[in-house]
């Protein structure tokens, strides 16, 4: 069992972190009824290495998270640094969030191995969708409470009605699925370091869009469970992405499918064959699929899928971020708060925004190759 450390930063990070630990215990309790401390639990409950960082918080929080990334790189250069990053949505209540985000992004660009950007709006949309489903009142559409990707039912802490709880649960579930293969057995394991290896073809292009399915399971056994294949289709729909992005209509650099539960290699292969024609992969990675099979499903489900896409569809998010930043920065609004802090200078801002511009340009260049025909390059010729 590879072992990892979770570093929870700021209000957002700590709230998500809390959900995560609760749900993790619930998951391990389901597998390990006697409550014996076993190898699986040891991967998490000593050290767990996924960092949960909030990008849109106050000034101090922004700085802490980027500092953490850099410090961790200096102290532990060999350890993979995975960052789950909550990006502010359009109607964010923190006015200076664009500054924080851009400054943080520069650090993430340079010091994180892998970033999973998530935005609150997408989480909110998913919750609305689930609420609609649950409250529609249709006969037989009762949902198993534990299966809701938004709920912490059956977990240790009491259920709250606070607004961010449901959203945080989604992110916590993401983290659980990300690490499931490292914690539980399966016929094709995948550790966190394999994610980075397979999904990051160039050091700067390390932003992965994630999607989780299914979002719930129905309790009525007379209604046939949503077919397995439907789960795979859903993972590629823009409604299931945790970022406002549409990977299906952009360019894939790489894609990982982490499957849990009673799913075998033939199911996986059949679905990849089925979905491949509707997706566009970059010319040098036409078969850019990384897959894993973990035998233990999440609580309340018989199977689940986490898809991670390295896809140019992140570009609009970054472009929007840059635009919002520029609107503030042009007028130098609120800048003095930052410049008062020792070590902060205007150059930090200009460097940060040019780092982001360079990143956007890389995605632009890749997009330009989208509809070009794939050609085989001439091979080395051997004199016989």
């Amino acid at each position, binding site marked *: 069992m590879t072992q990892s450390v979770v570093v929870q930063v700021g209000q957002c990070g700590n709230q998500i972190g809390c959900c995560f630990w609760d749900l993790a215990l619930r998951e391990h309790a389901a597998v390990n009824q006697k409550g014996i401390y076993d190898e699986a639990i040891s991967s998490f409950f000593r050290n767990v290495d996924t960092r949960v960082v909030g990008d849109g918080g106050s000034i101090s929080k922004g700085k802490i998270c980027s500092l953490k990334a850099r410090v961790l790189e200096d102290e532990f250069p060999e350890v993979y640094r995975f960052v789950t990053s909550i990006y502010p949505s359009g109607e964010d209540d923190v006015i200076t969030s664009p500054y924080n985000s851009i400054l943080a992004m520069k650090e993430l660009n340079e010091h994180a191995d892998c970033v999973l950007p998530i935005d609150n709006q997408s989480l909110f949309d998913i919750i609305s969708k689930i609420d609609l489903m649950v409250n529609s009142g249709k006969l037989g559409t009762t949902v198993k409470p534990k299966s809701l990707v938004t709920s912490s039912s059956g977990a240790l802490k009491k259920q709250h009605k606070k607004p961010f709880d449901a959203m945080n649960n989604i992110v916590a579930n993401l983290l659980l699925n990300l690490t499931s293969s490292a914690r539980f057995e399966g016929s094709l394991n995948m550790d966190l370091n394999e994610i980075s290896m397979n999904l990051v073809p160039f050091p700067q292009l390390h932003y992965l869009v994630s999607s989780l399915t299914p979002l719930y399971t129905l309790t009525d056994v007379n209604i046939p469970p949503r077919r397995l294949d439907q789960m795979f289709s859903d993972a590629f729909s823009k409604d299931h992405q945790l970022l406002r992005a549409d990977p299906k209509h952009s360019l894939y650099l790489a894609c990982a499918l982490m499957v849990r539960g009673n799913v075998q290699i*033939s199911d996986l292969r059949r679905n990849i064959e089925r979905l491949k024609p509707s997706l566009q992969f970059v010319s040098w990675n036409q078969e850019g699929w990384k897959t894993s099979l973990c035998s233990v499903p999440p609580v309340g489900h018989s199977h689940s899928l986490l898809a991670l896409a390295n896809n140019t569809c992140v570009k609009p998010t970054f472009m929007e971020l840059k635009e919002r930043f520029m609107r503030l920065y042009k007028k130098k609004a609120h800048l003095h708060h930052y410049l008062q802090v020792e070590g902060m200078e205007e150059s930090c801002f200009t460097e940060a925004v040019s780092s982001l511009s360079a990143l956007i340009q890389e995605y632009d260049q890749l997009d330009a190759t989208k509809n070009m025909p794939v050609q085989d390059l001439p091979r080395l010729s051997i004199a016989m």
Partner: protein
Amino acid sequence: MSIVTVQLGQCGNQIGFEVFDALLSDSHSSQGLCSMRENEAYQASCKERFFSEEENGVPIARAVLVDMEPKVINQMLSKAAQSGQWKYGQHACFCQKQGSGNNWAYGYSVHGPRHEESIMNIIRKEVEKCDSFSGFFIIMSMAGGTGSGLGAFVTQNLEDQYSNSLKMNQIIWPYGTGEVIVQNYNSILTLSHLYRSSDALLLHENDAIHKICAKLMNIKQISFSDINQVLAHQLGSVFQPTYSAESSFHYRRNPLDLMEHLVPHPEFKMLSVRNIPHMSENSLAYTTFTWAGLLKHLRQMLISNAKMEEGIDRHVWPPLSGLPPLSKMSLNKDLHFNTSIANLVILRGKDVQSADVEGFKDPALYTSWLKPVNAFNVWKTQRAFSKYEKSAVLVSNSQFLVKPLDMIVGKAWNMFASKAYIHQYTKFGIEEEDFLDSFTSLEQVVASYCNL
């Protein structure tokens, strides 16, 4: 004549378990269709090759289990123990906690040197337990990080420290799509390194075995367990004892001798396995076989490059003797004749003495360098294998694997041209030059096989 098996990575360990299980199950099978005395000789030989005896009578596999994370090894240890029939040695394992991240460079350049001493010590202890040590059987995949990278490193070490012993690497060729994104890089690095340090590469393609599960075994939801069991069946039918002399009960042949027959030249080390028949237990009950029928199919599978006994192309024939072959093998043509360097057929079961293998001695099947009498060998035993009244397996050094190899090299080359993922390897000391060396070696291998 004992073989020490080294199981590397998730794939190597999962397969290794199935192989030992299949060997022992067959050995205990009551359907050997031969005399009790013969059966006992067979069992004794099988046990000596693959197991050492423990005090309370439970055989211990002659295996060393290596992985860079503990889950799979722990699983295999407990599965074996649960069977009650055999187990793995307590101290025959080497584990770490961090994995290799599907990174060949990490497996080869970091884990290798770091853990060299510990791993080689465990192997040495296992070798010392053998009264008569015949060689190593190393099981690994080439797509991942541990099996491939660490596997290449360990094989190199075995070549250095046991240069007089035979080494065969059982390598799993990944599915064409969808296991690991960097599988083509890992594969070319593995193959080019092993070509230098191993004596023979026995290659099994996941795609081919998958088709056997689907078409011949009629399995609906195919799992890796199914795949590994088919593989274990094939390997078992190669490695179980056979007579060392005609019509006798002597099972003293060294199973790794097959390498001496099949690898006459170091440029040609790629071997593949085809077996017949292969079907689900239900179908088996209703089918009868003749040696003539089985051998005819097997021969056609060989010359038409079929991966299994269904869908064999009947329109491929060997070139007429005396005339040059119609065309040198072209990688673009679908229909071509598969030229062999050497073949070994192993026959197991009822009336095996009556089996006629003349068809395999046709000089038209082979290159001109070896006379058929040297290029072709047959091993036999009356003792049936694993519920099949009659079964035949072909281990072949031929053009079977050229097309898949060419495809992997092509894909890896396209990716290399864009420099994608290269930073992950240079981080750990594998430079672009190393990649170019690998490409060069393998293009050489492809060209050599094409020009047979």
